[in-house]
C-alpha cells in the first residue's frame, strides 16, 4: 500500500514531466523546506524538492568547496547532469550557506526562465521575524505573478493553504499509527511517504494518503518491531540505510528530519491576512538548526516526540560537514541521554559504507539487550 509513494520517489522526473505535459503547468525546483509551497500551489505551479541521487559523481568540484556537505554537492550534480532540465524555474529560501551555494551555481550554469532567492530570516526567535517574512512573501508573490502573468487571489492562496494543511494533517494521522506497539508501517515506508510528498502534486498525494489511512487500521506487518528507534538530523533520504537498520530487529518509529516531521509537523493557522498566516507557520515550524538559536527550541520538541512514540534509542545522523547540525549534536545527545534515551552518532555521505554502518548499528542495538544477557 506504500508502493505508490516509493514509485513516485524513484520516478520523480518521469512524474514531473508527465504532469507538465498533462497540465501544461510550470514545475519549480526548490532547495529547502522553508520555501512557502502554499503560494506556489496558489499559482498552479508544481513545487518539486531537489534532492540528490546517492550516486558518486565528479562534476561539482569546480563549483562547490570540498568541505561543504555532500548533500549540496549531490543536488548540484543532478542539475549539472541535466536530470532536471525540464524545470521551468528554481528557488531557495535561505537556510544554510552550503545549499545556497548549490542554488547560486545552479542559477549560474543551468539556464532557467525563473529563479528566486527568498530572504527567509535566520532570527526566527525575534517577534520582528513575523512582519519581516510577511513582507518577503508579498515580494515573492509579486514575482510569481509577474512570472505566470496573472494575479494570485486570496481564493488561490486559500486553496494553497488548504491543500498543504490537509497534506500535513493526513501525514500526521499516518504517523499516529507509528505510536502503536507494533506499528503497521515501517520507517522506510514513512520515509517514502514524506519525501514523495515533496515531489508530487499535493492533491494526488492526499488521495493516496486517504487510501492508506483507510487500510492502515487492518494492516499487520509480518515482522518484529524490535527496538523502537528515532532518527534525528540533517536531510536524509538514504533509503538503503533505513532499510538496513530495519533489517536488524528494530523499527524507526519517528524521525526529526526535513524529509520527515520537520517538513510537515505544523500547519498554517488561518488568519484574515493570509500572508501573515503563512509567515507565522514558517517562523513557528520545528526549526532547522541553522535557525534554532539563541534558544534551542527544537530540543523539547524532539524529546516530546521521543516520549509520544515510546522511543528506546536514537540514531543521530548528519551530513558530513553540516555545521548547524554538528553544533547541536553534543547538546542534543546529552539531553536525550539524560532523559534515558541512548544515542548513536553516524556521519552520512552521498553513499554510506553500508557494511561498516551495519556493524555499528548492530552493536548499538545489542546494548539494549545487554541487561537480559548478563
Amino acid at each position, binding site marked *: 500500500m506504500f508502493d505508490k509513494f516509493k514509485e513516485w520517489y524513484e520516478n520523480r522526473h518521469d512524474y514531473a514531466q508527465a504532469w507538465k505535459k498533462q497540465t501544461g503547468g510550470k514545475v519549480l525546483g526548490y532547495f529547502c523546506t522553508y520555501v512557502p509551497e502554499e503560494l506556489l500551489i496558489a499559482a498552479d505551479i508544481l513545487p518539486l524538492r531537489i534532492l540528490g541521487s*546517492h*550516486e*558518486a*559523481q*565528479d*562534476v*561539482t*568540484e*569546480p563549483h562547490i568547496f*570540498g568541505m561543504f556537505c555532500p548533500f549540496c554537492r549531490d543536488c548540484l550534480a543532478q542539475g549539472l547532469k541535466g536530470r532536471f532540465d525540464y524545470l521551468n524555474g528554481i528557488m531557495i529560501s535561505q537556510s544554510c550557506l552550503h545549499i545556497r551555494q548549490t542554488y547560486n551555481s545552479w542559477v549560474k550554469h543551468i539556464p532557467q526562465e525563473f529563479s528566486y532567492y527568498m530572504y527567509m530570516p535566520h532570527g526566527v526567535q525575534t517577534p520582528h521575524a513575523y512582519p519581516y517574512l510577511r513582507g518577503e512573501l508579498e515580494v515573492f508573490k509579486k514575482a510569481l505573478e509577474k512570472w505566470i502573468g496573472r494575479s494570485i487571489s486570496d481564493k488561490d492562496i486559500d486553496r494553497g493553504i488548504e491543500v498543504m494543511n490537509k497534506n500535513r494533517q493526513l501525514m500526521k494521522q499516518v504517523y499516529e499509527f507509528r505510536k502503536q506497539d507494533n506499528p503497521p508501517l515501517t520507517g522506510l515506508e514513512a520515509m517514502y511517504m514524506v519525501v514523495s510528498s515533496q515531489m508530487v502534486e499535493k492533491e494526488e498525494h492526499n488521495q493516496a494518503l486517504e487510501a492508506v489511512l483507510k487500510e492502515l487500521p487492518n494492516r499487520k506487518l509480518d515482522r518484529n518491531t524490535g527496538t523502537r528507534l528515532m532518527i534525528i538530523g540533517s536531510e536524509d533520504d538514504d533509503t538503503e540505510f533505513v532499510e538496513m537498520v530495519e533489517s536488524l530487529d528494530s523499527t524507526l518509529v519517528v524521525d526529526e528530519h526535513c524529509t520527515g516531521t520537520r517538513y510537515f509537523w505544523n500547519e498554517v493557522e488561518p488568519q484574515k491576512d493570509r500572508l501573515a498566516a503563512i509567515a507565522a507557520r514558517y517562523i513557528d515550524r520545528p526549526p532547522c538548526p541553522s535557525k534554532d538559536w539563541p534558544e534551542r527550541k527544537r530540543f523539547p520538541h524532539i524529546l516530546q516526540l521521543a516520549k509520544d512514540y515510546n522511543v528506546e534509542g536514537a540514531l543521530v545522523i548528519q551530513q558530513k560537514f553540516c555545521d548547524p547540525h554538528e553544533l547541536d549534536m553534543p547538546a542534543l545527545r546529552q539531553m536525550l541521554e539524560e532523559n534515558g534515551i541512548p544515542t548513536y552518532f553516524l556521519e552520512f*555521505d*552521498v*553513499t*554510506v*559504507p*553500508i*557494511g*561498516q554502518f*551495519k556493524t555499528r548499528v548492530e552493536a548499538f542495538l545489542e546494548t539494549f539487550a545487554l541487561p537480559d544477557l548478563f
Partner: protein
Amino acid sequence: MITAGIDFGAKNVKVVILDDEKIVARGSALTGFDLKIAVKDASEMALKAAGLKLDEITHITETGIGQGSVAFAADSVSEVGANAKAGVKLLPSARTIIDVGAEEARAVKCDESGSMEDFVVNERCAAGAGAFVEAMARALEVELGQMGPMSLKATEAVPMNAQCTVFAESEVVSLIHAQTPKANIARAIHDAIAERVISMVRRLGITEDVLLVGGLAYDVGYVDSMKRGLGVEVHVPELPEYVSAYGAALVAQERAKE
C-alpha cells in the same frame, strides 16, 4: 649532450638519461628508507645500460618528493613542470597531463611549448592514488597486475563512495560479503579513483588531448575508467612511470644550454 633526470617517487626512484632529446637509458629502484641508496641503485642501473659514467653527464635535474637530497644533481624542477615538459614532447597535442603515482595525483594544463598554465594536486586523501589500488588488490586477494584486466571483465557498475582508503576497504569487504563478483568490485575501485581524479581535474577544465602518465597509467582498468568518466579519448605513453624523470632530463637539456 648527455643529461639525466631523477624522479623521487613515493614508491620508486626513476632515472632517465638523455642524449640530446633521445632516451638512452632508464633505471629505477624502490624508494625504501634510504634515498641515497635508492638513487645510487637507480642511477647505476641507468648508467650501466647507457654505458656511461656519472661524470660524463653534463647536467642532472631532479624532481619529486626527495628533491635536494642528492648531492650530484645540479638543480630541480617541480613534478608538474616536469610533466608538462615531457607530456608535450611525447604527445605534442597534449594539453592536459594527468599524473597519478603511488601517493599523489596531479594534473597540469599546458600550452604547445610544454609550459605550465595551471595545475592541481590532490589534497586530502590517498583514495585517488595508486596506493589505493594496492590496498584494494590485497583486500580482493588478487595480484596488483590483475586488477586492471579483471575490471575490464565487469558486467555491472557497482556504486562505491571511496572518500577514504580505509572506509573504501570496508566498502570492498561489504561487497565481497554481498557476493559481488570480483570483476565488478575491481571496476568499482577504478571508477572511484577515476572519479576522485576527474573531480580534481575539472577545476582546471578538461582541454584535449588528455595524456595519462605515472605508474597507475599501466593499469588498463584505471585508463578505461578515466576514458568513460571524462567522456573523451585518453592517451597513454610507453612506460608512463618514467615521464616525470624524462621531463626533468629535458629541463636539464635546456638548462645545460643556458
